[in-house]
C-alpha cells in the first residue's frame, strides 16, 4: 500500500491499495508522530478495500483525536468500503464525506 502524507492546514493522508492485515501496520507507523493539525483527512479514493485490521487503526486514531478535541474525516470511499463501514457500524461513528 502507498501512503502519501500532505501537511497543509489539515493533515491529509492518501492511501493507495488495500488497508488489510498486512498493511494496516504501515498506517499505524505513519500516525506514530504527534499530530499538530486540528483535522485529519484520510483520502480513500485509491483504496480498494479495508478489512477489520484497518478498522482497528481507524478507531484508535479516532479515539486519540477525540481526546485532543481534533476531528477526523474520511473522503472518497468506494462501495465496498462503504459496505464494510455500514456492516460494522463504523459508518455512524466516522465522519465520512
Amino acid at each position, binding site marked *: 500500500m502507498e501512503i502519501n502524507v500532505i501537511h497543509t492546514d489539515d493533515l491529509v493522508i492518501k492511501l493507495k491499495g*488495500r488497508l488489510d*492485515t498486512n498493511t494496516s501496520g504501515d498506517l499505524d507507523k505513519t500516525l506514530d508522530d504527534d499530530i499538530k493539525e486540528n483535522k485529519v483527512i484520510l483520502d480513500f479514493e485509491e483504496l480498494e*478495500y479495508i*478489512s477489520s485490521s484497518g*478498522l482497528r487503526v481507524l478507531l484508535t486514531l479516532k479515539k486519540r483525536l477525540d481526546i485532543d478535541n481534533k476531528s477526523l474525516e474520511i473522503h472518497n470511499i468506494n462501495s465496498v468500503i462503504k459496505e464494510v463501514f455500514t456492516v460494522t*457500524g463504523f459508518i455512524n461513528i466516522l465522519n465520512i464525506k
Partner: protein
Amino acid sequence: MRIYIRTKIFILGFGLTLVLVLLAFMASFFSYKSRVESKYEESVKLSLSLTEDWLSDIRTQESYSTSESRSDVFNYIVNTYNDLVSTDKNYPSETADNETMYNYLKTYYSDLYPNETGAMGMSRTGPLNRAHYSSLKSDMVSAISVADGYMAEIVYYDTENDRYLNICNTLFKFDDPEHLGTKPGSYKQLSDYDHKIIDTITKDGCYREGSTRVYFCDIMNTDKLVARIILYYNTNVTAETIRDFARILAFALLLISALLVISYVFFAHVFIVKNIKKLTATSNKFKDDLLNDRELEVIKTDIKANDEIGILSDSFEMLEKDIIDYIKKIDEETTRRLKMESEIEVAAKIQLGGLPNKNYGDEKVRIFASITQAKEVGGDFYDYFYIDDTHFAVIVADVSGKGVPASLFMMKTKELIKGRLLSKLSLSETLFEVNNEILINNQEGLFVTVFLGVIDLKNYKFRFINAGHEKPFIIHNDKVEKMNTKSNFVVGGIENFKYEEEEITINKDDRLFLYTDGLNEAINQDNEEFGYDRILHVLEETLNKKSNHYVEDINEALKKFVGDNEPFDDVTLLNFRFSKTKTNLEYKKPGFEVIEEVTNIFNTEYGFMDNKKVSEADIIIDELLNNFVSYEKREDLIIKVEFLYKDNSLFMTFMNNGDEFNPLNKEEKYVSDAAVEVGGLGITIIRKLSDEITYERKDGYNILKIIKK
C-alpha cells in the same frame, strides 16, 4: 576595435595628401627657383630688347628735334657729346685735368646747381635746365621700369682718364645731393668693380653678380669718349616672388587636400557607409519581425546603387524572400505533421479500441494479452472469441508496414477472419478465402503474418495454422518449449495459396504463449536482439515462480532490456490457458504473509470477475486467514484454501487443523458510539460479504465454506 571606413579614409586621405603636398612643394620650389630666375631673365631680356629698341631708335634719329620722344634723350646725349668733343671748347686733351672737365660740364648743369658758379665766376645758364633734365630722367626711368630695374644712368666714358662723366642718374635727387646715385654733371673715377662690370658685359653682354644684373648700351663712340647708357637690375625680387608663390602653393595644396578628404568622406558616405547603414537597418528590422513573430514580408533596403553595394542589396532582398519562403514551408510542414500525428494518435486509439479486452476470463478460458505500440500506428493485432460453446479461437497477427493503411488493413483482416470462422469454415478454408479476398484491391501490397488457432475445450485439442508468423511457445507438462510448426506463406501474399492446418493435444494445465516479432526483434542499446532464448528464459522463470504472470514478466524483462531505446515495432503478447476453476492451496506453519500470497493467487486466477466481487472476496480471505493465523496457535498448523469457480459462482473453502472452533459462533459485534472493543468485527464483515457461509468439522479440520454468487 572598430575603425570605420570614414575614419580610415580620413586618415589615409589626409596622410597621403600631406605627403603629396610636401613633395609637390619641394618639387615646385626647386624647379621654380631656376624657372623663375630664367623667366625673370627672359623678361629682363625682353625689356632690355625693348630698351634696345628704344636705344636704337635714339641712335637712328637723324634729326635733333625737340619733340617729346625718345629722341630727346638721344638729342641731348648727342649734343652734349658733340659739345664736349669739339676742339673749340678746350676739350680735354691728353693734358686735360679733372678740374677743367668738371668745370666745363658745369656749364651744362648750372641751372641745376644754382649755387655753384662757373669757372669764370659768372653764373651761367647752360643748355640743360631743370625741365629738360626731368624729362630726360623720366624717360630713363620708364625705360628700365619695364623690367623692374632699380637704376639707370647715362655716362660719358672717358677712356683716356678712366672716368665716367655722369650725365643723368635716375636715383639722384637734387634735393638730397648727399645720397643715392652719382651726381649728374660730375665724374667719378672708375673703380675695380666698375672695371669688372665693363669687362664682364663686354664678354657676356650682361653682368651677373648674385641678384644684380647690369647691362649697358653704347650710343656714340670715339677714341676718347663713349656715350653709354648703363642699366642696373636687381633680381632680389625673384626670391620674394618665390616665397609668395610657395605660400600660395602651400595654401592651395592644403585647401585641395582638405577638399579631397572631405570629398572622400562624402563619397564614402554616399556610396558605401550610407548604404551599409540602410542594409543594417533593414537587417535589424527583418530580424525584429522574425523574433517577434510578426507577419514577415520582404523589407526593401531602399538602396538605389548600381555598384557592388547595389548587388549586395539585391542579394540581401533575395535572401529575405528565401527566408520567408523557407519559414512558410516549414510552418506548413509542421502543421501538416502535427495534424498527421494527431490523426495517427486518434487512429491508434480507434484501432486499440477495436480489439477485445486485455484480460478475459470465464470458467473455461483465461486470456492475458498486451499490446505495446511503437511510435507510429502499427499493424499488430490479437483476437479471441468463442466460435461455439466448445471451440475458442485465438489469433495473433502482424501486418507489414505501418501507418494508417496498415491499421485499416489490420482491422479488415481481423474482421474477415472472425467472420469466416464464425461461419464455421475450417481454419484452412478461412485463411484461403481471406487471403484471396485481401489480395483484391491491395495496391500497397500489404500482407499479414497470422497465427490462427482454435482450442477444443472438450477434447483439449489445439488446431492451428502458422502463416508466416513467429512460432509460439507452449508450457506443456511443466516445461517451456518453442512449438515446431509448419511455416505456411503469409496471408495476402499469393493467390490461392493452400494453408495447411496442424493439430496437437494439450493438457488442462498447459499455456500457450503467442507473440509478434516485435518481441524477439527488440533491440537494446548495444544493438542486441531480445531473441528467442531470452523469451524462453523469462517464461521458465515465471513458471518456477508459480506467479503465472507471464505477460507481465515478459513485458518487464523487455522494458529492462530495451532501456532508453525507442521501440520500432509493436509488441503483442497473448497468453492462453484453460481457466483454473479450481485452486487448491496448502500452507504449513503459515504466518501472516500467507494472506498476501493467497490474495495474489486469487486475484491472478479469478481476477476476471467484477471488481466488487473480487474486492469482497479479498476481504473475506483477509479476515478468515487473519483469524486462523491469529487464533490457532499450533506448532503444526496447516491451513488449506480452495477456490472453485462454477456457474458464475465462486466457492471458497478455508480449512485449518486447529481445535474445534466455529468462528461463526462468536457474537457479531458492531461498533456503536459506546462500543470500544474491536474484536469480532471480522466475523461481522465476513458474514455480510458472503452469500452463503457454512461451518463443518471433518477429519480434524475446521472447514468454512463460503459462496459468492
